[in-house]
């Protein structure tokens, strides 16, 4: 036996196990076998699959694999409870959320221990990070439930929400999904990840005890098959998913064209930038929090270390020394830094990546830590000499593996950091505030942490750019993901489409022939294919011919739009000036446009032109008023929610009100600093080709607006499939809308598809904040302070 004198000599930490008896007792009360939680009660339990403790392989419980029938049962329960839940006042819903927060706090240690048993994460993290953040999330949203009617006016709950969450932060991801959904007046069917269902089941039981009405929250356990059944279920109004980009893409495909709202929080390969003027020791600790937090199984893990060349050697030495002090072992030990990898499958995946990293020429270094002889463990791992062409620099490992690279200048750092399909998070270390904020502004990421990393708060939105998904969780942005704005509603306003008459009568040759062209990069250009399409007037006579745009025209237009990205850096005042100028010049030619509308549609166009001028005027006013927020962040931090342009947005215009609808879609996109590739109304493109003359006279920078006329179906597909188009807006027939959502899975671009025709002259449908929200993405910037 080791005596105190021996220990006095060794000065080692020794074991410090957390007591797991309460968690085992809870499992024992259920005889370690569970059904689903549907409609406020357990279904009869089945022994379909097992949940194991990854630290020792011990069986924790047996669980039911949710079938399509189970899902249907749960969706019906959620639907049945929806009306009563929505009829509660915001205050009453807030009280329920408050009770949930209290319940989590009252049983915090049970939740924490159960989470650690099931997931393998260190008890320190489940106890000090996961569970407190869960409680915080419900408290925060208890407040939102009361405030939502006033703060999100004109919006409605989405309905029944299907949620699929990952295994890395099981209960926290549940909280991120459930709290805003319930606060916003929705009911929920949630499927936890099959490795980690237990805290969700405990949670269900606890909230029932706290008085949540039956059916408002339903939990169905199972694997991807169950998830697929949930996502496909026709009774679901919205799908919210957190997990791999691969599965996210599948969900995008399955939900395309169904009218289901969708938010995706996907993978990342987040950069961690260390500049030569950083507090290097502080940054080393930052790396620990970035990649060895939760065994690196973190979607926003700082897995790509970019260090300025001049400090790279010293930084590597210090990092390695620090890695030697990381303790890996039994997750229930209170003095452990890294616990177990969630499952043998994941462990093998990590091992595969490490082998690949070595094979591709990276230099692998691991700390000397002695891993437990059994269970799923992997040591802290550093790869140096990684190049951006290597797999480790590009693909998400989801494990404790850091890929390190160097950079020379801050421009190069930004270029390397942004050289990824993902855009979830980034961390910037520098003591120079000018440098840090410049880099933060130019990084393509939904969250940027300056001199810190992996900081979260319920008041601050979290979510990614690019293929890291769309939608935000947390804060008011996250709340919007569970509400429908009026402008989002399928808006069939009883308008009928203008018919395309046949055959075309020959044109009466009184005026000089005009050749409308495409408008790309600020120039009128002929269509690449050399074809034109005839445009009839309502009575069937030939009004004119427009260019038949094709793939290459779209390609050129997208390139022009990217080349014009400086538009996003023009001051808000400057953008407003251009929009005002557009309004002024359109008004100056209002007679001409009204006459053209009459020719095209057979209807008096004066009111439409007037409304279009007004809309430009309004969005000019919005340019410098759609502002971000300063969040009520933890003390010692400033957290800024910055609305940023999305980038290049494709816009497919509808046929109704061809000028006004085009202006209504174009103006907010432009006002927020995006550049645009616009496909005008297929039926009435001549309005758009007249409009480029207004553009030419209004100081619109070349390439900021590009117009490609032609077949809507064909051009929409090219735009939707284009990997360098960041978002796509479509208003029109539902069939094409569904196709657009399906085509867009390649780069998971944000689509805004509204089916049906809308009355564009109605400001609640045709303009306002929802358009601006859709034209921006929020970057949350965390800046701690203190000297």
């Amino acid at each position: 036996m080791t005596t105190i004198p021996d220990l006095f000599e060794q000065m080692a930490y020794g074991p410090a196990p957390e007591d797991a008896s309460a968690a085992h007792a809870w499992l024992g009360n259920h005889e370690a076998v569970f059904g689903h939680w549907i409609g406020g009660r357990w279904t009869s339990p089945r022994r379909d699959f097992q949940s194991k403790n990854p630290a020792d392989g011990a069986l924790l419980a047996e669980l039911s694999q949710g079938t399509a029938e189970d899902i249907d049962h749960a969706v019906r329960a959620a639907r049945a409870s929806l009306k009563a839940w929505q009829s509660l006042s915001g205050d009453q819903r807030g009280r329920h959320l408050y009770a949930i927060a209290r319940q989590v706090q009252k049983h915090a240690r049970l939740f924490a221990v159960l989470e650690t048993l099931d997931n393998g994460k260190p008890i320190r993290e489940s106890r000090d990070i996961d569970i407190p953040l869960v409680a915080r999330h419900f408290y925060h949203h208890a407040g939102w439930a009361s405030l939502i009617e006033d703060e999100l006016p004109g919006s409605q709950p989405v309905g029944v929400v299907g949620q699929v969450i990952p295994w890395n932060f099981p209960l926290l991801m549940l909280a991120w999904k459930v709290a805003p959904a319930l606060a916003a007046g929705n009911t929920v069917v949630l499927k936890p990840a099959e490795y980690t269902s237990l805290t969700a089941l405990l949670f269900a039981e606890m909230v029932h005890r706290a008085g949540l009405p039956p059916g408002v929250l339903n939990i169905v356990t199972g694997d991807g098959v169950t998830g697929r059944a949930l996502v496909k279920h026709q009774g679901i109004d919205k799908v919210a998913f957190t997990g791999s980009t691969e599965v996210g893409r599948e969900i995008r495909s399955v939900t395309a064209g169904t009218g289901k709202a969708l938010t995706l929080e996907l993978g990342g390969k987040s950069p961690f930038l260390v500049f030569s003027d950083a507090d290097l020791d502080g940054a080393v600790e930052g790396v620990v929090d970035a990649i060895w937090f939760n065994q690196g199984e973190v979607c926003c893990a700082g897995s790509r270390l970019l260090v300025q060349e001049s400090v790279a050697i010293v930084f590597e030495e210090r990092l390695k020394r620090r890695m030697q002090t990381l303790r890996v072992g039994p997750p229930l030990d209170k003095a452990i830094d890294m616990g177990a990898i969630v499952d043998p499958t994941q462990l093998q995946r990590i091992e595969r990546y490490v082998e690949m990293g070595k094979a591709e020429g990276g230099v692998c270094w691991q700390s000397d830590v002695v891993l437990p002889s059994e269970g799923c463990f992997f040591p802290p791992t550093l790869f140096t000499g990684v190049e951006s062409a290597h797999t480790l620099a590009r693909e998400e490992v989801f494990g404790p593996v850091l890929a390190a690279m160097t950079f020379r200048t801050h421009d190069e750092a930004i270029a390397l950091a942004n050289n990824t399909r993902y855009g979830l998070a980034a961390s910037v270390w520098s003591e120079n505030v000018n440098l840090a904020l410049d880099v933060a502004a130019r990084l393509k990421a939904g969250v940027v942490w300056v001199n810190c990393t992996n900081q979260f708060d319920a008041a601050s939105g979290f979510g990614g750019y690019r293929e890291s998904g769309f939608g935000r969780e947390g804060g008011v942005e996250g709340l919007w993901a569970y509400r429908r704005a009026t402008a989002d509603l399928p808006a069939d306003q009883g308008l009928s489409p203008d018919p395309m008459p046949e055959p075309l009568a020959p044109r009466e040759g009184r005026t000089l022939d005009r050749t409308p062209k495409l408008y790309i990069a600020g120039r009128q250009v002929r269509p690449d294919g050399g074809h034109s399409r005839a445009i009839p007037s309502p009575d069937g006579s030939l009004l004119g011919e427009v260019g038949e745009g094709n793939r290459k025209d779209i390609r050129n237009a997208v390139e022009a739009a990217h080349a014009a990205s400086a538009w996003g850096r023009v001051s808000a005042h400057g953008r407003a000036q251009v929009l005002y100028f557009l309004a002024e010049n359109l008004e100056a030619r209002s007679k001409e446009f009204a006459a053209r509308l009459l020719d095209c549609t057979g209807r008096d166009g004066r009111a439409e032109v007037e409304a279009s001028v007004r809309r430009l005027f309004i969005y000019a006013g919005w340019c410098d008023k759609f502002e971000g927020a300063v969040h009520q962040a933890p003390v010692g931090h400033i957290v800024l929610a910055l609305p940023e342009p999305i980038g290049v947005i494709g816009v497919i215009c509808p046929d109704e009100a061809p000028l006004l609808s085009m202006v209504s879609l174009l103006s907010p996109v432009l006002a927020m600093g995006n550049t645009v590739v616009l496909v005008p109304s297929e039926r009435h493109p001549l309005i758009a080709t007249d409009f480029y003359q207004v553009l030419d006279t209004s100081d619109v920078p070349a390439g900021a607006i590009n117009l490609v006329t032609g077949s809507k179906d064909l051009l929409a597909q090219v735009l939707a499939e284009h990997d360098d188009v960041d978002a796509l807006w479509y208003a029109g027939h539902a069939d094409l809308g569904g196709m657009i959502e399906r085509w867009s899975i390649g780069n998971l671009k944000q689509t805004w598809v509204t089916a049906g025709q809308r009355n564009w002259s109605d400001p609640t449908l045709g303009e306002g904040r929802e358009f601006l929200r859709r034209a921006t993405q929020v970057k949350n910037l965390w800046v701690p302070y203190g000297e």
Partner: protein
Amino acid sequence: MGVTKLRKPRHAGLPARNPGVALDLDWLAEQRVNRSAAERRAQSLAGRRTVKKDWQAAWLLRALTCIDLTTLDGGDTSSNVARLCAKARRPLRSDLAAALGAESLNVAAVCVYPLFVEEACGALAGSGIPVASVAAGFPDGLTKFEQRLDEVRDARVAGAQEIDIVIRRQWVLSADWSALYQEVQAFRKAAGDCRLKVILGTGNLGNLTNVSKASLVAMMAGADFIKTSTGKEGVNATLPVTLVMLRAIRHFFDRTGFAVGFKAAGGIRKAKDALSYLMLVHEELGTAWLCESRFRIGASGLLGDLSRQLEHRTTARYSSDRRHPMG
């Protein structure tokens, strides 16, 4: 327990005393400390590390051996100094010490004002426990330089084996690093063979980057220990300040090969606090630094709480102050 007896830890191949190095201003210019990051590290460590049961007892005993048992009070007289020295000789109640096998353990030193050095030396004669004297215009360092220097010499002559000097904080605040360097060098020379602990007065230094720079300059000038504070500043030892000083010690060791010690002083009264400091040293510098030759805690009340916690380990009952002799 009790078969093996505890002995003071020794470190084989302990490097020679830090002789100091040339003042390197470029090195100072590289120092940058982000307070938020330092605070986060210090704060999260409390949740990351703990010791339980016999390990905790061992760590508490190790803390005991690193205490500079201190009285630096305006009301000090011969009687309370004598009481303190007696406590230093027998830091634990004898039955408790026996139960833990810790009869041979002493505190690291007794620290007093210069006037009491001779008395303390007498009271500790034969115990092997050194007397440490504060000097050089303690606590503010704002008396004439010659006078401060004389204090250092006097303390040595009076029998102190360790001298805790204060720096003139002005040199840090005005970034006059060469003045600071020369001052510490002069004290080092005047201290002769005495161990020189340099008190930075971190509560006066304005920010952590200054703490880092002052630490380096003190070490360059030949400090044997760098010490946080006098106990008289508004803010004394804190974990973030300690973190910064420990990192400076590590960088100095990496670059020069000379191991400099660290002393935390002021406000460390609870066993749990002491463990936090030990753990921070363990993490940043390793176990080699967890011995009296490289780590000290300047404290008066801490020993009482250590005794209570150690008794709890042997009896499984929570203990009371009145069961332990006061120091």
